[in-house]
């Protein structure tokens, strides 16, 4: 969907992005991961030409982005940022309707779309549509920001640390939301973050950047189980790798069906990391599992956690 070939960007002579080669696959959730200043935002902004590259080529839908009018290009790509940047003088619904209006959608179509998006992002249209941004909490503002980015059904969603300014609970809720939207719509997403766990939880493809270059890329599992350099190993946290690997898999995949145990159960959509925590906290080596409806689904044994690691390889 998007291809970078040998793309560089300089600020005052120093390279912010250095001969970058990257393919963003259609339908993928690509996360640009790295420490602050590693060139993630610059890379993202070169896609919608908020920043113009100095060298190399960037193709979108097979054509060089320079061959698009910047405005046309941007209207085909959703864009959400950490500080949200909602228009303070417009209501929530008018904010969300920004791009549909630019594209000249009819009133009815725009209104229906705004309603649909607010519902999808769990903002009650009856309560929030007419409010102004300053009357919303930070989390609600960011929901509006994401809804606005999705409004005109963009071919690709670009997000720059969209949840960086939120408290952990709100952030987790929005991460779940964006993951669900990605699975439901199959939309291509490129997201920038410096938060490893956020990347591991959402990405189908992680691009780990360092000083304007790609240090390693691959699935979360590939990054965790085969760090390509000391930098990557340090970044993913040497001692925490095992725990993070467990976070990638769900209890359901390893449940032994047929066995029923009494006691406080695990949920089948819990991660193995949460299961480990439960084993240690309760000092047991087997736990009952229930599915999303609360019906008994089987048991999980402590030793299955290690098998899981094994299977994953």
């Amino acid at each position: 969907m998007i291809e970078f070939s040998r793309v560089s960007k300089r600020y005052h002579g120093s390279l912010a992005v250095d001969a970058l080669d990257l393919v963003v696959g259609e339908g993928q959730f690509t996360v640009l991961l790295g420490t602050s200043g590693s060139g993630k935002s610059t890379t993202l902004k070169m896609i919608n030409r908020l920043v113009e590259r100095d060298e190399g080529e960037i193709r979108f839908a097979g054509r060089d982005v320079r061959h698009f009018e910047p405005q046309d290009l941007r209207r085909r790509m959703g864009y959400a940022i950490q500080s949200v940047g909602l228009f303070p003088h417009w209501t929530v619904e008018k904010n969300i309707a920004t791009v549909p209006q630019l594209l000249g959608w009819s009133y009815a179509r725009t209104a229906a779309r705004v309603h649909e998006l607010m519902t999808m992002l769990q903002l009650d249209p009856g309560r929030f549509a007419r409010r102004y941004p300053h009357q919303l909490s930070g989390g609600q503002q960011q929901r509006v920001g994401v809804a606005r980015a999705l409004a005109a059904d963009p071919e690709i969603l670009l997000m720059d640390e969209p949840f960086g300014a939120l408290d952990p609970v709100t952030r987790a809720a929005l991460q779940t939301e964006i993951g669900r939207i990605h699975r439901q719509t199959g939309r291509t997403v490129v997201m920038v973050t410096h938060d490893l766990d956020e990347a591991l939880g959402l990405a189908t493809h992680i691009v780990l950047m360092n000083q304007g270059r790609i240090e390693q890329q691959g699935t979360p599992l590939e990054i965790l189980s085969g760090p390509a350099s000391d930098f990557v190993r340090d970044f993913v946290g040497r001692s925490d790798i095992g725990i993070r690997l467990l976070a990638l898999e769900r209890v359901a995949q390893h449940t032994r069906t047929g066995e029923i145990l009494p006691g406080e159960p695990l949920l089948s959509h819990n991660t193995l990391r949460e299961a480990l925590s439960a084993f240690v906290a309760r000092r047991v080596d087997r736990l009952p599992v229930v599915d999303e409806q609360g019906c008994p689904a089987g048991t999980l044994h402590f030793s299955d956690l290690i098998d899981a690691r094994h299977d994953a390889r």
Partner: protein
Amino acid sequence: MPPFSQRKHDRVLLALTLLMLASLYAWPLLTWAPNRLLTGHALPWSRLANGWHPLLWLPGMLLLPAWALRPRRLVWLATALAAAALLAGLCGLAGAVAAEEAARTPFGRTSFGAAFWSMALLCWLTAAHCLTRLFPRHSSRSIAHLLLWAPLGLLLASGRMDELSVLKEYANRQDVFDDALWRHVQILLATLLPAIATGWPLGLLAFRRPALRQALFAVLNIIQTIPSIALFGLLIAPLAWLAQTSPWLARAGVGGIGMAPAVIALALYALLPIVRSMVAGLEQVPAAVVEAAAGMGLSQRQILLRVELPLALPVVLAGIRITAVQTVGMASVAALIGAGGFGAIMFQGLAGSALDLVLLGVIPVVALAVVLDALFSFFESLLEIRP
């Protein structure tokens, strides 16, 4: 320290009340002179307390204990009303006393004394203090002020104050006064409109080009430091020369003296606050909002018209308000080079040492400034209110 509303006493009200008592003790409320050119002496209190006159002081009695009451809405409302009623009462008293004196000695002049002006200011401050607490919203507060001071206008219009010296000066010079008012407004508009028409684009340009901004502000700051009289003087020679060399300019009214140099100088002064407010207004638009707008595909023009200018508007309006008030005041000085306006009345009064004639020029200038300030503040507050 507990928040203001929880304190037992209102210290501001106490201070204002004490100042009222002090000024009444120290200065004369009204003065009387045998004719318009002589300096007046204080009218004794016995003259101010004839017949029903003491009744007019009643609102003042209400004001005395207000500071000691527990601050709450009812007290604020009563205090604001009492302050307005006190000022109206003092005006009525002055008018009635002046009429009595005039009946005795036809050429005698009754004028407001220092205590009256100080009481007027203190009454206004008292009411403003209470209204600010009663109406947190600026727009409803403006309307409350209007209602509170409307009786003064009615009193003035009713003719009950006509025997006061200032109003006699007005009666003698009604035509001159009306011309001056019209001319003052003309100068104001002729200054503001071109200053805005050039100041806003310059501000926009300066905002986009930081290099230009520095040079522009350097020039405008220098202009601002030239004393107005000097600037008027500096313009006389080149404009006189222009009028001589191009007769069509002279026919259009351009000359070394008169409206032309006044308006040019005032517009130059007006440029700095107008340009600066445009730049400041655009600068305070959050960068994230502009980035988001660009990222969603708004063009530069759309960002300017739909995002930057609307968000800059409150600051820009404040700039116009400050400029308008400044221009009303400075336009008085322009009378020195023959531009007319209320300044002409002031300088005429100064030349003849007729203090009340000076006041006839000063009062409307102050009133005009206050009204303009209130009007623009009202518009600004409308922008602030978001449902």
